[in-house]
């Protein structure tokens, strides 16, 4: 474990300690929720890591660079937005995937777009959104979020 890991664990422990000093019961409930949520997303997580392992042996960095590299220009973030916008899963699961792609020479714009589209677009929840707020609201928001994920990705690629 790195120094950053220890620092994060220390900060988390301090937060739990502070929470417990304010309200013991709520803190116990928080820890139970943490465990339950972790167990909930664990299968998905295992799948993501297994997928990264498989990519590592089957795909060459050159192939990933070919699809998502900076040589692709604006196409790379667009591919990333389409994939991120359609796929759904726990927000935390997309970060390891993004880092893997970045290590394999995907462009920063593509990875940033993927991270944003994964959480912000919500294609799967679209029917529920339509029933609450109407098609006009839901579809406008969906289209804007999809475009924005590409724009923000491009801005990040340009700045970093």
């Amino acid at each position, binding site marked *: 474990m790195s120094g950053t890991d220890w620092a994060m664990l220390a900060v988390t422990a301090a937060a739990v300690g502070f929470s417990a000093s304010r309200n013991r019961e709520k803190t116990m409930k928080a820890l139970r929720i943490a465990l339950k949520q972790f167990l909930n997303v664990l299968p*998905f997580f295992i799948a993501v890591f297994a997928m990264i*392992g498989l990519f590592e042996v089957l795909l060459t960095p050159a192939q990933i660079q070919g699809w998502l590299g900076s040589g692709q220009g604006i196409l790379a973030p667009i591919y990333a937005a389409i994939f991120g916008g359609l796929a759904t899963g726990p927000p935390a699961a997309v970060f390891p995937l993004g880092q893997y792609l970045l290590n394999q020479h995907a462009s920063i714009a593509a990875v940033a777009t993927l*991270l944003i589209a994964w959480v912000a677009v919500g294609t799967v929840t679209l029917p*529920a959104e339509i029933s609450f707020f109407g098609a006009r609201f839901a579809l*406008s*928001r969906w289209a804007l979020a999809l475009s924005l994920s590409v724009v923000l990705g491009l801005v990040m690629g340009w700045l970093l």
Partner: protein
Amino acid sequence: MKRFVKWSKTNWLVWAVAAAYVIVAATRPEAAADGGIIGLQTFGELAATLVTVFVIVGLFQVWVTEDFIMKHLGEGSGFRALAIGAGVGTIIHGPLVGIFPLLDALLAKGARAGVIVAIVSTWAIKLPMIPLELRLFGWQFTLLREGLLFASAFVMAPLMDLALGKDWARHHRATGQGMTGIITRPEGDLDG
């Protein structure tokens, strides 16, 4: 059976990856084994960060309740309302479907469409996930991405106001399109 189908829907990737492994193992067994080992190592490297993330998720869930949000969502207008909306979006958690009833309640109380959009936009910021992002991408990337996401609420809101027209929120209230209370929070939510 119903539960199994539901589980498979949220965990679609499990089946996809399992199928991929079976295919690879049949043709190139050593590649499948290597892939599995690499996957395990990657998981091990992140284990401590994941503990941090989920403990923070738990703490958020008990301290940031819907009552807490409603209490702190003043009757601000204009830019201030958007800023408050963006702040609310940043701290709320759970799947997007889970916050629709909350947003619907806000609309019913007179919030304008832009505020709702600001909340939905900044909802993509996952405060408890920041340790994970920091660990994997570093300070520069994390701060820039989160900052841009926050700022994007102030771009999305006017654009949505434009797309929907001025009277959308009033019209939405008048037609009673909202479904508060009909759809309740889904169980076993995946999100942080």
